[in-house]
């Protein structure tokens, strides 16, 4: 079981790394926002897995809130890019 968690974390770290590189490289604002969205989703999953690692259910609330709010942050940026703000 421990190995599976290790492997999952390693995959996630690599995914985060690649998304971060896209964030820094990305030529347009859209690329960066997509990278932010990806980072958010991967980190939400990571936070949930960490909650399992810590073994306490109270930690799950943070992941829940993050799943909700991260998406609103992305929509805000998207609306700005649309020129609607």
């Amino acid at each position, binding site marked *: 079981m421990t190995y599976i968690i290790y492997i999952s974390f390693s995959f996630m770290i690599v995914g985060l790394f690649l998304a971060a590189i896209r964030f820094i490289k990305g030529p347009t604002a859209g690329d960066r926002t997509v990278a932010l969205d990806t980072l958010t989703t991967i980190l939400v999953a990571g936070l949930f897995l960490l909650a399992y690692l*810590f073994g*306490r*259910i*109270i*930690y799950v609330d943070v992941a829940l809130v993050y799943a909700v709010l991260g998406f609103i942050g992305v929509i805000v940026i998207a609306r700005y890019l649309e020129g609607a703000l």
Partner: protein
Amino acid sequence: MDDKLFEILEYGVYGASILLILIGLYAVLTKRSLIKIVIGMSIIDGGIHLLLITIGYLKGGTAPIFSPGYEEAAAQMVDPVPQALVLTAIVIGFGVTAVALSLIIRLYRHHHTLEIDEIKRLKW
């Protein structure tokens, strides 16, 4: 292995928070755009909050919440006081940032620039 990594972590977390403070200070001191200065301010705030949380951390500790199953675990809980302080400081920092940004909007209404050198009408 773990202990050695943990020793590095000890310097790593303090170092990272102090570096964050310094990066923010650099932005505040050298950047000429007003919004950049406010961004620097919020970076400094983040660094200080990380510093405070790090002070309260306990190795192998758990969150200071006595949820079912953890009623007796007071000995291995991290320090709750810095967390309470940071809670207050985050909200205060947000309020100050909001006021700063609204001042920037008003400055731009009059000056039509964000350059700090061009706005300097009053002597420092």
